[in-house]
C-alpha cells in the first residue's frame, strides 16, 4: 500500500519537474534564425563548391595540369586546355615557348561530395572553396557550373 502511494506521488513529482523545465523554457528567447529572411555567415573554412582563383592579370591561375580531375573521387571535374605559343626573353634572346591555357573548367556539382580533395591536390593554389550554401533549383543543369565563366562574371 505504501509503495502504491509513493509511486503515485513520485510519479506526479517527476511530471511536475518536467513541466517546470518546459515552463522556464517558454519564457526564454528563441534561438532559431528565420532562414530565408536572415542568413548566417559561413565560417572561413566552410567548404562549398569550388571556384577558380585568378592571378594578377585577371586570368585563372590554373595551369590545366589535371591533378584535381584525377584526385576527384566522383569524377565531377572536367577541364580542357589548348597549347599557346608565347615568346619569352631568355638570356637576351627571344624564344618561343609553349604553355597550356585553360579553355574549359566544368564542375558537375550534382555528383560532387564536397570532400575537398581537388583543392588539396592542386599544387598551384588555383582553386578554392566558395561560400555559397543556399543553392537550390528545379533543374539539374543549373548545377553544371562553368567555372571559367563564373570567374569572368566575378571580374566583370
Amino acid at each position, binding site marked *: 500500500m505504501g509503495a502504491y502511494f509513493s509511486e503515485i506521488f*513520485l*510519479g*506526479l513529482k*517527476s*511530471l511536475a*519537474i*518536467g513541466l517546470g*523545465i*518546459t515552463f522556464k*523554457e517558454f519564457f526564454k528567447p528563441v*534561438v532559431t534564425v528565420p532562414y530565408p529572411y536572415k542568413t548566417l555567415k559561413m*565560417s*572561413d*573554412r*566552410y*567548404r562549398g563548391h569550388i571556384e577558380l582563383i585568378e592571378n594578377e592579370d585577371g586570368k585563372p591561375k590554373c595551369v590545366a595540369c589535371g591533378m584535381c580531375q584525377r*584526385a*576527384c*573521387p566522383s569524377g565531377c571535374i572536367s577541364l580542357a586546355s589548348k597549347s599557346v605559343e608565347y615568346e619569352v626573353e631568355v638570356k637576351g634572346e627571344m624564344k618561343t615557348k609553349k604553355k597550356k591555357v585553360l579553355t574549359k573548367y566544368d564542375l558537375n556539382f550534382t555528383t560532387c*561530395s*564536397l*570532400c*575537398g*580533395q581537388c583543392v*588539396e591536390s592542386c599544387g598551384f593554389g588555383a582553386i578554392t*572553396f566558395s561560400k555559397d550554401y543556399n543553392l537550390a533549383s528545379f533543374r539539374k543543369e543549373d548545377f553544371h557550373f562553368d567555372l571559367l565563366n563564373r570567374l569572368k562574371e566575378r571580374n566583370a
Partner: protein
Amino acid sequence: MSGPIHIRKDETFTLNVGPQHPATHGVLRVKMEMDGEYIVKAETVLGYIHRMHELMGENRTYPQVLPNLSRLDYLGAMGYTHGHVLAIERAAGIEVPERAEYIRAIMVELNRISSHLFWFGAFVMDLGGFTPLMYAIQDREHILDLMEAVTGSRLTYCYFRFGGLYNDVDDDFINATRAVIPMLRKSLKKYDALVTGNIIFRKRLEDIGPISAEMCRKYGATGPVARGAGLDFDVRKNEPYSVYPEFDFDIPVYHECDSLARYKVRMDEMEQSLRIIEQGLDKLPDGPIMPKKKPKLIKPPVGDYYQAVETARGSFGIRIVSDGTKNAYRFKLRSPTYSNMSLFDEACEGMMIMDALAMMGSLDLVIPEIDR
C-alpha cells in the same frame, strides 16, 4: 509488461513497418507478423539504400575513398573516417604526429556527443515526446558550429588525412570548446530531470526490450547495446588505439539488459566524452599536424589489415586486403548498426508493437550505415 498471454498463430496479419515509417528513421523495412498488437515474428528487410561503398573502396584509390566513410553514418562520421585512416596508416607505416592524434581524439569525442544528443532527441520522439529533440538539436548545434569552424563541414566531415589532418585547430576552437563543455553538462542535467526522471518515460523503458549478453554475443552486437547488457567491452579500452590510453575515462556498463540500460549507457557516455575532451584540450601538444615524410602515392604492402574503432554506435571494423597497388583488393566494412539491427528480429518476438519500436529506437539505428 509481462508479455503476450496466448498467441494464436492462425489469426495473424502482416504489418509492413517501413520502408517509409516514422519510427525507422530511414529507409528500413520490417515485416511483422502480428497478432493484434503483439509481434509474432519479425523480419528485417535491408538494402533499400545500398550504395556499394565496399565496391567503391576497391575501385578507387585510398585517398579517394576517404569521403565515402563519412557517408556511412551521417551522425558520427568522424569515428568512421578515424577507422579508415588508422587502418591505412598501419598498413602503409605512416607516422602520425602527436598533435594530430590528440585533435583526432577530441574531434571523435565531440562527434560522439553530437551523435548521442541527436539519438537522444530522436529516441524520445519515438516515444512521443517532441520537445527534447529540439533541446538536443540546439545543443548539438553548438558542437556542429565548433566542428564546422575547423573542418569546414557540418555533417560529412572528411577531416582526417593519412598521416594527419586536413587543417589545424586554432585558439578560437580551443576556447570555444572549453566554453561549450560546462554548457553541455548543464544540458545533460536538464535532460536528466526532464526525461530520465519522468515516470512515463521510465515506465516505457524499464524491463522492456530485453537484449541479453548471450544475444549480443550471438549477433555480434557492440557498443551501447552490448554495454547495456552488461558486457564490458569498448574498443577504446580493450584494444586501445590512437591516444586513448593517455586519457582517464570510464566505460559505463549497465546490467539490466533493458531499453533503459541502453539509454543510460549513452547518457553516461556523453559525460565521459566530455571528460576526454577536457583532458585532450589540456594535454594538446604543439607541433605539426602532418608528418614530414609521407609517401606521395599510398600503396600499402601486400597484406591483410584490420582496424577496429569505437564509434558512437559500437565497434566499427575495417579490413583492407592490399595487393600492393593503389587500390584495395578487398575493402570490408564491419558496421556496428548492422549487427545491432540483426538481433531485432529475435528480440522483438512476443513484444507489443510500441515496445518493439521503442526498443528499435534504443538500438540507435542509422540506416545508411546498415545499407552501406
